């Protein structure tokens, strides 16, 4: 069990012995956990490499994360910056190549608690939108931290709707410069990470005006702080936007630009150029400026949303076999709370999501790698589908992920409210993800627009040949469908074909009824835009059903590849896939009963199957969370450690609270207020 020693990394007094209540859960594994871990890592060699990296940071006190629970915003930022510094030194010493897996693994090992995350977003944006000369000029400077770049898009008054951005970039042909300016208060750049304290440059997204015309949003490299003493440059007002719900390691900032001039070469010009005389030239489509956001979303889905959700599952599930509460039978000892059906109902769906989203991310990554280079080489044919796929996944994974983490947090009872559980921090990361990188409702509606377009195209196409040209993710719109679910027994609901049909049916029906609703309103005299707004609640539902369908489909297809090579792993994962699909149906039952697709007796069967699955997955729950293979260091939770010694650790960690540390600490409030309070009232009454 080399891997056990690996996971237990806190090196405290209890790590030596495993709590019997969690040990018993691991005693008779129904499948080989290590093989599942390898599968998730993408091969045994990756698992080995990851563990090697994790060992590097395990014993260094500078990488101990426990203290982060007690830090102020300022201390968080400093500690995260220090970790970045140490990692860079380590990487240099170990000679890790750029963008290597080692970097990905060290970020994971340290729970992403490292500053300057947006610096790499900006660097990716330069790579996506910059010309070869610009890339050659700026990227090496970024990599060696000669400059630190923030990606400054969102404004105080404008977020997801990029056409509404107010920051101006006006070309002055006389000096061959752009004049970058914030014309109003609402135009102030607001929220960009790394901007508040760290950045020397900002990649500012601004509305370009040249030759007397407006050309929409473009990206400009703007120096904002002195490279000598880091003070703001003339015309620049920059600072921190104040305390937030979480993500304290990031110095989200504001930026006001007062007619700041940058040379013509500072506009990123892979796809668009302004020539010295002010002539505007574009290659490709305007939407290509969204490419950096697509890239960011892909990485954030894995590093923040997927890992965050999985970690919450690990913590809540482990705690639920240690925590005992009440008795099921009066004669029994108090039961593990995971043995309560209601607790299983809370925790097993997030666990199923943790796996479903793993395969979802894998499939997006795959599509992304296939299309990204083509797009950079100005072949735009895959951009719409890549955009729809990442947009929909972002909305669904963040919405469900945030909900799942909060469920896990509350499933830990009162202790889930303590920061020492690690849950509040996970929750605040996931909650933030629902609005940044595109507000979810807006994103779902973008997916809906893609769907409506394809649906209409499918209807209009008379010959089967052009129907076939629908993008792969929406091909189900034209596939043959059944109108009634054929299930006759409870076991039928365990057939992936059957629940796939159910989801395809509902997704297509919701989409068709939205399209009809749109048409109806237009025929009744509403203009197209008003009709869209008046149909948006329906469209939202259709987009959500589509996203769910896609996720189930990816999960199912990933499992098919395992069926023969890994039968034992396949068996446990299939239960999760079944549960994921059926949970979604039960949560939105109305849509499935509405047109009689499911009958009332079928729903009863489905529910029985679902409750049965809870019980079966319960048996493997600990091993399924172990397989994610997060180290204790990275979980940073008193409740979720591998060895299950929850209470000892909770007590020990609480002692570190600054309020407990010094004897003098308790004096100020006592002497300043409590004692006078006691004396004054005692004497008066």
């Amino acid at each position: 069990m080399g891997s056990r020693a690996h996971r237990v990394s806190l090196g405290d007094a209890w790590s030596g012995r495993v709590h019997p209540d969690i040990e018993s859960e691991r005693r008779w594994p129904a499948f080989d956990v290590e093989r599942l871990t390898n599968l998730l890592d993408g091969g045994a060699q990756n698992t080995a490499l990851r563990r090697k990296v994790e060992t590097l940071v395990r014993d260094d006190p500078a990488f101990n994360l426990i203290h982060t629970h007690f830090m102020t915003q300022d201390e968080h930022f400093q500690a995260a910056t220090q970790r970045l510094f140490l990692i860079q030194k380590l990487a240099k010493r170990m000679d890790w190549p750029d963008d290597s897996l080692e970097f990905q693994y060290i970020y994971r090992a340290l729970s992403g608690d490292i500053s300057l995350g947006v610096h790499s977003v900006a660097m990716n944006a330069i790579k996506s939108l910059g010309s070869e000369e610009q890339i050659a000029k700026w990227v090496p400077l970024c990599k060696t931290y000669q400059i630190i770049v923030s990606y400054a898009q969102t404004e105080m008054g404008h977020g997801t709707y990029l056409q509404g951005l107010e920051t101006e970039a006006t070309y002055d042909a006389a000096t061959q410069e752009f004049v970058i300016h914030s014309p109003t208060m609402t135009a102030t750049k607001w929220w960009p990470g790394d901007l508040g304290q760290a950045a020397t440059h900002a990649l500012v997204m601004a509305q370009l005006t040249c030759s007397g015309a407006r050309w929409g949003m473009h990206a400009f490299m703007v120096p904002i702080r002195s490279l000598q003493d880091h003070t703001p440059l003339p015309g620049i007002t920059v600072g921190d936007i104040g305390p937030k719900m979480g993500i304290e390691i990031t110095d989200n900032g504001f930026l006001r630009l007062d007619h700041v001039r940058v040379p013509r070469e500072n506009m990123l010009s892979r796809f668009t150029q302004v020539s010295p005389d002010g002539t505007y030239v574009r290659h490709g489509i305007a939407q290509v400026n969204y490419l950096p956001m697509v890239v960011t979303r892909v990485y954030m889905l894995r590093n923040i949303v997927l890992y965050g959700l999985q970690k919450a599952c690990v913590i809540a599930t482990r705690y639920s076999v240690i925590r005992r509460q009440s008795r099921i039978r009066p004669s029994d000892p108090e039961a593990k709370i995971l043995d309560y059906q209601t607790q299983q109902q809370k925790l097993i769906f997030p666990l199923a999501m943790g796996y479903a989203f793993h395969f979802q991310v894998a499939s997006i990554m795959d599509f992304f790698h296939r299309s990204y280079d083509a797009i950079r080489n100005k072949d735009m044919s895959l951009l719409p589908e890549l955009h729809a796929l990442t947009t929909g996944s972002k909305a669904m994974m963040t919405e469900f992920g945030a909900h799942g983490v909060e469920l896990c947090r509350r499933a830990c009872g009162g202790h889930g409210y303590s920061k020492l559980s690690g849950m509040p921090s996970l929750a605040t990361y996931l909650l933030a993800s629902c609005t940044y990188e595109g507000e979810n409702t807006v994103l779902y509606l973008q997916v809906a627009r893609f769907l409506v377009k394809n649906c209409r195209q499918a209807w209009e196409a008379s010959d089967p040949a052009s129907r076939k040209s629908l993008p792969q993710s929406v091909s189900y719109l034209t596939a043959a469908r059944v109108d009634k679910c054929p299930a006759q027994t409870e076991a039928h609901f365990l057939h992936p074909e059957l629940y796939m049909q159910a989801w395809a049916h509902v997704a297509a029906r919701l989409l068709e009824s939205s399209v009809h609703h749109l048409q109806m309103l237009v025929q009744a005299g509403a203009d197209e835009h008003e009709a869209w707004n008046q149909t948006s609640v329906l469209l939202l539902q259709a987009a959500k059903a589509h996203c769910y369908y896609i996720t189930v489909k990816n999960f199912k297809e990933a499992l098919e590849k395992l069926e023969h090579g890994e039968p034992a792993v396949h068996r446990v994962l299939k239960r999760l896939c079944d549960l994921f699909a059926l949970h979604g149906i039960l949560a939105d039952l109305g849509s499935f009963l509405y047109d009689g697709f499911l009958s009332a007796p079928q729903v009863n069967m489905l529910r029985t199957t679902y409750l049965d699955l809870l019980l079966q997955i319960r048996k493997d729950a600990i091993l399924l969370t172990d397989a994610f293979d997060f180290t204790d260091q990275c979980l940073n939770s008193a409740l979720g450690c591998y060895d299950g010694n929850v209470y000892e650790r909770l007590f020990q960690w609480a002692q570190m609270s600054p309020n407990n540390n010094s004897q003098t600490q308790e004096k100020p409030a006592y002497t300043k207020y409590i004692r006078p309070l006691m004396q004054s009232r005692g004497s008066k009454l």
Partner: protein
Amino acid sequence: MNPDLRRERAAATFNPELITNLLDGSPEKTQRRREIENKILSDPDFQHEDYNFLTRSERYDVAIKKSAVMVKKMREFGIADPDEIMWFKKLHLVNFVEPVGLNYSMFIPTLVNQGTTAQQEKWLHSSNGLEIIGTYAQTEMGHGTHLRGLETTATYDPKTQEFIMNSPTVTSIKWWPGGLGKTSNHAIVLAQLFTQGKCYGLHAFVVPIREMGTHKPLPGITVGDIGPKFGYEEMDNGYLKMDNYRIPRENMLMKYAQVKPDGTYVKPVSNKLTYGTMVFVRSYLVGEAARSLSKACTIAIRYSAVRHQSEIKPGEPEPQVLDFQTQQYKLFPILATAYAFQFVGKYMKDTYYRINESIGQGDLSELPELHALTAGLKAFTTWTANTGIEECRLACGGHGYSHCSGIPNIYVTFTPACTFEGENTVMMLQTARFLMKSYDQVQSGKLACGLVSYLNDLPSQRIQPQQVAAWPTVVDINDPDSLTEVYKLRAARLIDIAAKNLHTEMSCRKSKEVAWNLTSVDLVRATEAHCHYVVVKLFADKLQKIQDKAVHSVLRNLFLLYSLYGISQKAGDFLQGNIMTGSQITQVNQHILELLTAIRPNAVALVDAFDFKDMTLGSVLGRYDGNVYENLFEWAKKSPLNKTQVHESYHKYLKPLKSNL
């Protein structure tokens, strides 16, 4: 004032003041509340720095300081009535989180309810005067809602006539009690009583924990703060470990049970009375759910009227976010829920006081139903509000995540209500137990009464899956009575199903308890349906009593939205049970969209009617005057990180970063 908000307010079809009076109880109460609030707002002694910019330790400090001025000021202002104290504290404390709060809300009431006259004489005076600062230590590290599982022991030693208080294990350490960490010098400790070699279950003991005068922990006592939390930063939630710590026999609260000097245990006459405090706190939490949700949607709706974003039609100016159907769909059902819960909260409070009076006269007959109802409604309303607050935050987009929005604070302050005072799932199952008992009672021929009396109609309405026409099919989706009826049918049906599943599980081989566990998901679902029905019914009842036509009409729309939205969300239950047909569900969904349009012009006035002061909201986005952006910038400038132009981390880490590589 922001022109958008001015326009919204001018366009309202009703007078918000009338609703404010309705929520307060009367115009006089509204007036008195405002009088008190204005005194606080104009008093320089109450000014302090924004909590958001303080560290945890500084916030604790401010909170203690507030408690210190508070009693003096309340006396000065002549505030003594319980409602008035509540108004005062809610504005003054903002989060209503007060380290010495448990002295008044738990320590003293427990002393009064469970202490003998002699005990009250001994401790009451000093605890009222805060010479004794008490707290209430029940929850342990390893044990929460299930009280019988508590491990702390109190063993009687007849030789010295003392109790030996002990925390035998790590899991038995008292954990979470508010004010325990740093503030209190006494605690009422719940412990398993052992005397003459026998365990008599949980009893309450007054335990001195800190030395008077020096405030140092007494020998044998280990006490401290449990560390940082999601919220409640002003509160020193604490731990307490007792190491064979001795207290005199007289420190056991002995109004009911007693231990004689020789160690003989005398049983209490009735233990139902201890329910009282629990019922009170839970019904109070229903009101808190309403308040917190109302605050969050005040912020989100005002901000959505000020915020302009995107386009509906190309070329036109960016519309108010509130004009998007999806935004209305997010926020208006929450607004309707906030109103529904306001009325339920009021009902719970009144019922508690009414029943408490009969209890005082020895009539305990209504207590079981009240106990069951508060447990379920506490869970139902806190869960719903928890989700609703988070949705309001999301509806504010990115700015919702900043503390400037005030919603993160509302969320983290409110969310523990789902787990404290009884974990919600456990609460739901307590109510389920009552529902199952009533169900069995009806089955055996006895009538159920009160809010569950609809179960009496069950045998005649036995669900027959084949018989499609079993339910009355005439549903008028514009009629409050008809909507109440369909919710009743849904509850009846789900209770019936849960009961039958429970009996099936029991009959096939399993013990009663195992069967209960294997039915618990169904039982929770049934209880939710029951609670949902109760909320719809209470809202409908309230609606009937409203005289003013304009107010009635606007609240009627909210009622309809609340009920129809619930049907739409739970359409599966209504369809599967043949309570409604597919085409009726389509009508419901269509009518919801119409209601959104109908409510839209009154949305801002409806949140104004909650009449929250800006200080209570603590939100830049939700300001009454709507001047959001200027103030957002001003607020950010106060951030501690902006104190210097160049942050020290630049010199420490960033600069070396580039030279090192």
